[in-house]
């Protein structure tokens, strides 16, 4: 077993570095900058380590930990998105006096939790990873502890998330009781449709996971937490945990529940349709951009779940592509928020964007590209994400799901257009403060150029994602 420790190398490296920079933070005064820079370095090094890892499937620790192409892909996606989120939000963090050295360390801890989540092949390890991630997120949500809204959102998230974790744990124990094992492979062999208890367990686990990705009807926390938490945290919430949550949903369908897919699918289809509709309709009346992005993320998760709900590899692939493009779009959109500063304050209302295109053409055109891409208008990247999802869904002849999805696309286009209208069509011309935030600008630039040029070579993501399911 010890010989196989190199499989665990990224996690070991990450944990040791977390301890080291924690010590740094404790012993050096005003250590935010140092810790922050080290965090970026650690993220880059971990990416390098994982890229160096082979993608062949290997299991260690009594088959409870798995490393394969699937987990490696998600780990890299988590790392890259965290890197961009962290760096583009740095000046926001400093200016809002959130620059405690714990901030990046807690983010690293949550990343460690997600690593265990996506690599778990065992219920216990899975739950441990999930809790490590969730506990870090509770702290992050209330990191601005003197701010009433931030603390409120932290408590809200904690209470609801603890409830869902409890349900999830109950599901895990039921599953153990009915199958006699916590190992995913063994559970997969034991499970069948006659096993009513296991079906209950499945529902509980699904509830827990749906909560983490904020799918309807377990989405209630999302708008409040997104609005209450500082923008930099919201950005992190909107991107990284969703990736991990989706990975787990796919993993549960692939391994432990592969024999009772049909039951699992029925629930997922409902959740997916409900998320798409609510995400589209509820966002229309929002005035706060963060709240609007919360609802839009609920809608986007609905589309990603539609791909998962097909229960086919092509569907999972389309979901993974969707979530990857979703990450790119959201990093760009939130980076735009880091540049919206007026009168010394970061603005988050749609009305604060009114007519900014006259004075800030570059920021406006970038926001325009990202928003049209989110709406799924060709030839931008967001269209291809949706296109793959609908291709997979229609292949399974789930026409109802496809047509609902397409109609909600039209409805959700309305609120994206509303923001564009505010930016471009209004007569007033708001001038924003100059914000020196190079990394946010770089994030916006990269995100826009990927979305704009995606149509030139749209199979680039497909090729990567295809290879994940090759065996």
């Amino acid at each position: 077993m010890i010989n196989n420790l190199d499989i665990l190398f990224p996690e070991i490296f990450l944990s040791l570095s977390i301890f080291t920079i924690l010590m740094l933070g404790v012993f050096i005064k005003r250590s935010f900058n140092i810790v922050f820079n080290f965090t970026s370095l650690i993220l880059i090094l971990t990416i390098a380590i994982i890229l160096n890892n082979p993608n062949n499937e290997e299991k260690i620790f009594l088959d409870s930990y798995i490393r394969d192409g699937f987990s490696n892909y998600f780990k890299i996606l988590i790392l890259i998105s965290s890197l961009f989120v962290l760096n583009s939000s740095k000046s926001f963090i400093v200016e809002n006096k959130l620059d405690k050295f714990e901030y990046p360390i807690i983010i690293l801890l949550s990343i460690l939790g997600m690593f265990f989540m996506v690599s778990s092949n065992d219920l216990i390890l899975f739950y441990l990873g999930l809790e490590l991630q969730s506990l870090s997120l509770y702290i992050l949500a209330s990191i601005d502890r003197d701010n009433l809204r931030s603390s409120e959102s932290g408590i809200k998230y904690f209470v609801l998330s603890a409830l869902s974790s409890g349900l999830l744990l109950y599901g895990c124990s039921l599953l153990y009781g009915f199958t006699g094992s916590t190992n995913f492979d063994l559970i997969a062999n034991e499970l069948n449709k006659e096993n009513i208890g296991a079906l209950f367990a499945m529902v509980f686990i699904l509830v827990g996971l749906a909560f983490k990705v904020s799918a309807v009807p377990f989405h209630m926390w999302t708008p409040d937490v997104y609005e209450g938490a500082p923008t930099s945290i919201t950005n992190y919430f909107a991107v990284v945990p969703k990736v991990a949550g989706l990975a787990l949903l796919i993993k549960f369908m692939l391994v432990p529940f592969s024999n009772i897919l049909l039951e699992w699918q029925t629930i997922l289809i409902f959740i997916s349709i409900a998320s798409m509709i609510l995400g589209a309709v509820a966002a229309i009346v929002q005035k706060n951009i963060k709240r609007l992005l919360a609802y839009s993320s609920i809608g986007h998760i609905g589309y990603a779940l539609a791909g998962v709900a097909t229960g086919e590899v092509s569907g999972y692939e389309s979901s993974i592509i969707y979530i990857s493009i979703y990450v790119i779009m959201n990093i760009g959109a939130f980076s735009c928020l880091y540049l919206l500063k007026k009168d010394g304050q970061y603005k988050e209302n749609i009305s604060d964007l009114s007519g900014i295109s006259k004075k800030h053409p570059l920021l406006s055109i970038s926001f325009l590209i990202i928003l049209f891409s989110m709406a799924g208008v060709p030839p931008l990247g967001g269209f291809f994400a949706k296109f793959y999802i609908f291709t997979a869904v229609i292949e399974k002849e789930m026409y109802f799901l496809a047509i609902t999805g397409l109609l909600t696309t039209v409805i959700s286009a309305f609120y994206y257009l509303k923001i564009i209208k505010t930016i471009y069509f209004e007569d007033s011309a708001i001038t924003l403060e100059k914000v020196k935030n190079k990394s946010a600008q770089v994030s916006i630039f990269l995100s826009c150029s990927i979305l704009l040029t995606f149509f030139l070579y749209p199979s680039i993501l497909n090729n990567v994602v295809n290879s994940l399911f090759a065996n």
Partner: protein
Amino acid sequence: MNFPILSTLIFLPLISSFFIFLSKDKENNFSSIYISLFSSIATFMLSLFLWYSLDVNTADFQFVEEKSWINNYIKFKLGIDGISILFIVLTAFITPICIISCINSVKERVKEFLIAILVLETFMIGVFCSLDLVIFYLFFEGGLIPMFLIIGVWGGSRRVYSAFKFFLFTLLGSVLMLVAIIVIYWLTGTTDVTQIYEIKIPKEYQNLLWLAFLSSFAVKMPMWPVHTWLPDAHVEAPTAGSVILAAILLKMAGYGFLRFSIPMFPYASEFFTPLIYGLSIIAIIYTSLVALMQEDMKKLIAYSSVAHMGYVTLGIFTFTKQGIEGSIYQMISHGLISAALFLCVGVLYDRLHSRLISTYGGLVNYLPKYSLLFLIFALAALGLPGTTGFLGEFLILIGTFQKSYLAAMLATLGVVLGAAYMLWLTKRVIFGVTQNPKIKTLSDLNKLEIIMLTILSFLVIFFGFYPMPLMETFSSSVNSLIDNYQLALNTRQ
């Protein structure tokens, strides 16, 4: 031919729009205007060269380009035949005219306006070149973004409402087409149009797929009863936006019927012919009556566009040589005439900032050059023999008479109504007594406006007397379209 001439044609405007984006002139926007004029004229020359080197004796697709695109199963495939080349030339011809017209009419954010126009040109040429359903959808939908911005940023007072209506109507129609495209892919294993022609889609699927395509094309055409976005969009759009909308965007749907609906779903096309006849006749008569009552010049021309497009759908679904050729001819001619009429309205709007008919009257005494050109276009729009407008309608009516007397009779009624509203418009705007004292101070056309409008009037009259160059171009393609359609219907029975 190894040189990717179609890709060059498509992406030339896009690349030059990037250069405009980079150009840095603050006050007069000279370099932006020159870059865009130069590139759009180069595109036009290139399209003329394509027309010249196109072999019109064959119905095969020419200048075909093929690249693997999405995982080898969807190809980036371009190609043109006798039908599409004319639309490409029309697009490439109208764009420089729009750019010239914006020198007079667009006062703010000229640079962005030119970028939007050039990006739009890329999408429009792309629509007419694509031989793959997904590529077609990409270009078809992509055009929404620049058009939405053109209406919304540079439009009139109710621009937000119109832009949203335009965008959401078109998007709603198109998403169903996307479903149909994906279904076709799973039925046939390809989205390559030429392969789908060969494979033939099973009869039981055709009706639903045809309706899904119709939902998109009907909105874009626009057919009654989903035409309501068009008058709003036209009224609020700036002159150049209206010109592009009327001259080219409306032709995409007619082209879509010819390229996709009929060859791919021959059975459904025959099945739904009565529906199309009904909708077309309603469009022709109803919108002509509505046009009679309009007080806004742009709205009147917009409604007349709906009526003219009614003739196009009627002609296409006769499946006769005359009907289809007439429809294509009508589309080209409407592209020239409606563009010219919107330019004429734009000329007046630039001077008096009013589009209401009642503002004007007796223009002939003070703007003689303008009045002459306006009269030519108005007469062409009502189908005076010797102009392109006559030939299209005439051929369509001949085609319709072969299939249905009733439809042809009712459509002929539309010709009379068309004459009524156009002549009445001319009478109220050009002739009559000058009521408004401001008209006496108006200046006649300036050089740029004379250039634009004379070129258009020359073409309208030239092709009215001598239609052969156009007819020869698409004749063999139309023949093969009809032959394949008849063949498909016969083999099924």
